[in-house]
Each structure stands twice: as C-alpha cells, then as structure tokens.
C-alpha cells in the first residue's frame, strides 16, 4: 500500500503548481473568467503543449494513457489554482464520450483537434426539465434517409458557447425517461438550425442554452450504437464526478489553509481571532473534513480505475461527501473570513462559488445519497 505520488504524478503536480504560481495568480484568473469566452485561449494552448489535455486518452488516440489517479492529481491542482479553462467540458465530458464511442474517423475529425487544443467541444446532455436524470431526454433525433434530424432543447451546456463541436444526447426511441433509446451525436456547433444563448456561470465559467430546430446531420454524426447512448453517458458521468470531486478537494484544502492564515492575521479584541477556541475547533473540523474527503477520493478513484463492481457506489459516495462537506467547509471558510469572505475582491468568495457550483452538477449530495440508500 502506497499513497505517495508516482513520478509522473509528482511531475504533474509540480508543473501545475509552477504554472499557477507564475502565470495564474488570482487577478489573472479573474481577467480570464471575465472575458467573453470565460477562459484564456493562450492558456488553453499551453495546457495542450504541456500535454495536460492528452492525459486520459490512449496512445492510439493521440493521448498519453494516463490513469484516473493521474487525472485526479491534475484536477486537484486545477482546484487549488481555481483554473477556469474548460478542461472538464473538453477533456472529461466531450472527450470522454469520444474516446469511448467515436470511430477512428470521428476521432481524427474531432478528438485529435480537441487534444491539440485547436477545437473546443461541449457535451449537451442536460435539458431544462431533466434535473439530474441523464435518461430524461426529450430532444429527439429522427432518421430521415441517410440523415438524422434533431429537435429539442439542451440547457446549461458547459462551454456550449465556445464549442465547435457539440456532443448531443438525443432520444431515438422510447418515452422521455426510458433508459433505452438514447443516442449520441457529434454535431458541428455552426450547423443550420442551432441557436445558442451563451452566458457566464456563477463560478466564472461559461455555459449556454442550445435549441435544435430541424437540425440535419449526416449519418456519420452518430456516435456509437443507436439507442445505446446511456451506457456511454453513465461512464462519462462517473469520470466527471471524480474530476470535479478532485477539483473540490483542492478547493477545500486551499479554503482551509487560507482561513487558518486569515484568522492568524485578523486581530480583534487585541488578539488574533485564531486564538478563540470556538473558531479553533471549527477549523479543526474543516481540516479533518478535507483529510477524510481526500481519503475517500483516493478510494473512489482507485475503485473506478479498476472497474470494480462497487465503482458506482464509490462514485455516488464521493459526490455525496463532497456535496455535503464542501458546503460545510465552504460556508465555514466564508463565515470565518467575516465581511471579507463575501467580498468579490477576495479569492475566497470565488473558491466558494466554484465549490457550490460543483454540488449542483452531476447530481447533488441528496441525489447521490438517495442512490446509496437503495
């Protein structure tokens, strides 16, 4: 048993830490987050050059065959740096579907440019009514000779406004919430009939509402088998949960460290407020929650990477934990920062918003605890 980082992981941590320290201070991050795209295309290019965008993909696909644990350390560092570049949308979500379901030709057209940082992609799987049920798909794809015609709406598509490629879940058979009959398509974002309404999200990222009106796509837009999309989506949701949970652990650690530092500096009643026992015990709980969450993340990531039969439960466990504990740690960090904790100018507020956003994605704490209770 060995919980230390291997050479490659240590190198990844080191290089991301250096990148954040040198090129990604909080003000810079805010500039990128506040830009129209919501991230920095140059920084994204750097990520590609450094090979970070290639991590989860196999060598045949042009990747470097990294493990889920490698991804975990990357996301944890991105969390610490509060990185807004669309790694989740491109690499984990859209990339996750493509590497599992795309044909060689589709990979060449779409996956390689994504890995190279030349194209942006998004996974359109949420609908206005679907909440966390990825099988609730009302958007339809109807076969029309060699073509498919898509009609419907997708909501809160992360990176949707920037995307050149939209990976879309569509219903090709069955009722609105049937598990079968869901099919995935790779659709160029500039296809006729697509209307995108792009907007920033509360955590400094970017998303879009997307309407499909008689959008006609070729047969080669079909990703994987007809009606079998949910299996692929399920697997990608697992990746996504692990990724955002690793990010959240990074965020929680930073928030805890910053809170401890802040209370040591902040003097009230003639003493640093870190000397108040009631606050000390609360910070001990924050620290403890971070440690336990990191432990659980390791367990879940490892089970998932081994394809263990308990992986689904492990994924729900960590998402539940992060939702529950993330809220607690985030709220405590803000509270102990007092007025500064609710100031836009301080980074702590933005860590808090990202942490909060993470609970809202891919099933919140309640959703996953319900799964575990069955």
């Amino acid at each position: 048993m060995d919980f230390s980082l291997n050479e490659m992981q240590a190198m990844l941590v080191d290089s991301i830490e250096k990148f954040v320290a040198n090129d990604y201070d909080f003000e810079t991050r805010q500039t990128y987050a506040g830009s129209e795209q919501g991230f920095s295309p140059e920084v994204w290019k750097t990520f590609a050059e450094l090979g970070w965008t290639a991590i989860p993909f196999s060598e045949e696909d042009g990747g470097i065959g990294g493990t889920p644990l490698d991804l975990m350390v990357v996301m944890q560092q991105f969390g610490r740096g509060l990185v807004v570049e669309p790694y989740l949308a491109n690499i984990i979500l859209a990339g996750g579907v493509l590497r599992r379901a795309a044909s060689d030709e589709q990979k060449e057209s779409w996956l390689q440019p994504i890995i190279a940082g030349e194209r942006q992609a998004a996974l359109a799987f949420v609908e206005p009514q679907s909440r966390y049920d990825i099988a609730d798909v009302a958007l339809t794809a109807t076969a029309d000779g060699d073509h498919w015609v898509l009609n419907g709406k997708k909501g809160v598509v992360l990176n949707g406004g920037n995307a050149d490629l939209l990976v879309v879940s569509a219903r090709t058979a069955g009722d609105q919430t049937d598990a079968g009959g869901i099919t995935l398509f790779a659709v160029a974002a500039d296809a006729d009939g697509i209307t995108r309404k792009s907007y920033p999200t509360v955590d400094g990222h970017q998303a879009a509402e997307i309407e499909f009106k008689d959008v006609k796509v070729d047969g080669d837009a079909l990703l994987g088998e007809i009606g079998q999309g949910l299996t692929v989506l399920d697997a990608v949701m697992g990746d996504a949960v692990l990724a955002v949970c690793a990010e959240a652990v990074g965020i929680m650690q930073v928030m805890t460290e910053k809170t401890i530092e802040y209370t040591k500096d902040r003097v009230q009643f003639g003493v640093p407020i870190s000397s108040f026992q009631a606050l000390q015990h609360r910070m001990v709980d924050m620290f403890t929650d971070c440690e336990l969450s990191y432990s659980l993340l390791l367990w879940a990531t490892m089970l998932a990477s081994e394809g263990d039969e308990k992986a689904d439960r492990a994924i729900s466990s960590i998402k539940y934990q992060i939702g529950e504990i993330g809220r607690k740690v985030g709220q405590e960090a803000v509270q102990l920062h007092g007025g500064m904790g609710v100031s836009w100018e301080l980074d702590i507020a933005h860590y808090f918003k990202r942490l909060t956003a993470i609970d809202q994605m891919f099933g919140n704490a309640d959703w996953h605890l319900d799964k575990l209770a069955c």
Partner: protein
Amino acid sequence: MDVTFSDKDIEFREEVRAFFRDKLPQDIAAKQIRGEPLEKDDFIRFQKLLFEHGWGGYNWPVEFGGTGWSAVQKYIFETEMAAANAPGIIAFGLKMVGPVIYTFGNDEQKQRFLPDILEGNVWWCQGYSEPGSGSDLASLRTRAELVGDHYIVNGTKSWTTLGQYADWIFILARTNTDVARRQEGISFLLADMSTPGITVTPVITIEGEHEVNEVHFEDVKVPAENLVGEEGKGWTYGKVLLQHERTNLAGVGRSKHRLRNLQAQTGRAVRGARPLAEDHSFMRKVAAVAVELKALEYTELRTLAAVAAGNAPGPESSILKFRGTEVEQAIDTLFLEAAGYYALPYVPEQFTLEFPEEDRVGEGPEARSSLQYFNNRKASIYGGSNEIQKNIVAKHVLGL
C-alpha cells in the same frame, strides 16, 4: 395562556392586508416577484405611501409622528408586508438613527431630522464598522476632533449598505483617546454626505452586486451641533440602537413568505418531468426547515408578548438573530438545491422587468437562487456576527 391573536389584532391584520393589496404599486411587487433589485426610488415611493397613510413611523411612538403600535401590531405589519411582496423598510433612518435621535437628541435635532425620515425625504446610512473593527467595534479608529465649533473627522467606515444612495450618515467616532475603557470616548455624530472630504467607494459583494460601500472621511468638517447627546456617550447610544434593531431580527415574516413560495415551486412540473414535491428526501428538508421556522416564530411571539407586558427585549433576543439568519440561509440553500443546474447561470440583467421573458435562462424564482444564496451568506456575519451573538448570550443570559 393564549397563543392566538386577539380579535382586534386580527381586524388590524385585515386592514394591513387590504392596504397592501390595494395600494402597493404593481411595478414594485412585480420586481420583487421577478427578483429585480429595487432602486432607490422604489424604496422612497413605498415609504411615502406609508407616510401618506399615516404609517410612515410604523415602529415609532406617537409623539414623534409614529403609529404607537404594539409589538404585536408591528409584527403583524412586518409579516403582511413580506407576504405582499412589498419592499422592506429602509432601516437606516426608521429603525436605526431615528430612535437614537428621538431618544437622545435635542429638540432642534428632532425637529430637523425626524420628519424627513418619516416622509422619506432623506436617506440615511450607517457608519459603524471599519476595516479593522468588525466584531470588535469598540476598537474603531475614526477620529473626530473638536476644533472651534466643528468636529474634524478622519477615518474610514466599511460595509455601508446602500451608502451610494445616502444623503446623511450617522457615525461612531472617537472623540477622546484618553479613556479607561475603549467603549468610552466614542461619540455619535450626524454628517451630511455632501460635506467636502467624504468619498464613497463601492464594494462589490460575492454575487457581483453593488450593495455596500466604504465611506472615507478626510478632514471632514461636521458642525458641533450634529453631535447627538453627550460627547463620549456614543457607545451607549449605539447599543440602544442595536436593541431597537432587534425587533424583527428573526425575519420570520419574510422567511415564511419565501418558504410558501418554495413549496409552491416544488409542486410545479416542467416539461413532463416529475415535480420536486415527489422527491421525498428534498421534501423532508423543506419540512424540517418549516418546523424550525415555526419554533422561531413562536419564540419571537413570546418575546413580543413579553414586550407587550412591559418587559424590554433582553439579550436572549440575540438567539432570534442567529437562529433567524440560520433559517434564512437554510431556505436559501433549499432554493439553490431546487434549482439544480439552473443555479449556475449568472445573468443578473435578466431579472429586470424590461428583459424579455422568453430570453430568460431558467424558469421561475429559482433563477436567482444562487445570487441570493451567495449574497445572503452575509446574514450570519453582519449586525453583530452570529459568533458575537453567542458570546452575548453566553455572558449575559447564561452567566458564563
């Protein structure tokens, strides 16, 4: 023992309810429902409306132009106000500086300042906290030196809510440093915001809105006649002010209104999806908050009844502040959770009435849930943080 409202109270409630139903401007109610932040003018229109009806000083004694209502009537008024989607009262004048002036001010000050508060002519703001003095307010460093017939004020006040609207500010400033206890030597001053040397800097809060400010004083000349009460007694007056502020601290009326809205929202089904009301785990949390709120409501009513029986609200009313804000924040969290992915969009402009309905992202009130959630983390921090409230209860109620 009788926990019901008297017939007279119920009659009063009907009167208040009818007033809001008939008189509250539709556009203001619409903004509230939509989640559009109110503008200065909305608040002022509302205050003038109350004033015209004779309710401008709903919480003031009759002799200063108030209604002289009982604690129970004030409670009913505030509850109905929230239920009607009316704006809140502008607290700075009516609940904060006003009571200090009519309690400790001289006749000239009363005549000069009180009517404008009742009529909504003058907007006040608060100058208490400083960047280095939050929970430990007595450590404030703003100085006021008496030079001739003026105080020369220097320092910075922070977290000044809606200071950008204000015509006047009331401040606590140190007029004497040679004191035995830090609480001494602090004075309560009133300053015209247009006085040279006062500058207001916006502070953007976590959700991206401009609600609070820093107010800087650089050699600001405040006429000596603007001192309220005695020099050096400002701390005492400030504490009385906090006592007044403590009515309706639990925010029960607003929380009840919001919880009803949430319950209505959970019944709504969108595009063939199951309504949230069928999510038993979520509804358990809603039910638990409703129980907490009911307990809080009756604790507040108990306090009111004690006040009505002639007892002052004691330090135990601190529990209303910290539990009230906890419940508020629990309701914020429920709205956030109800919104799912639609808590993510950050499109504040879409809450204005002009914004086309069909272009809105997310349906119903949940669209503003995350902004409310983030912004309202302040509730447990301001007005004496919840930690300070617990210190007060520990010391003054439990004798620890």
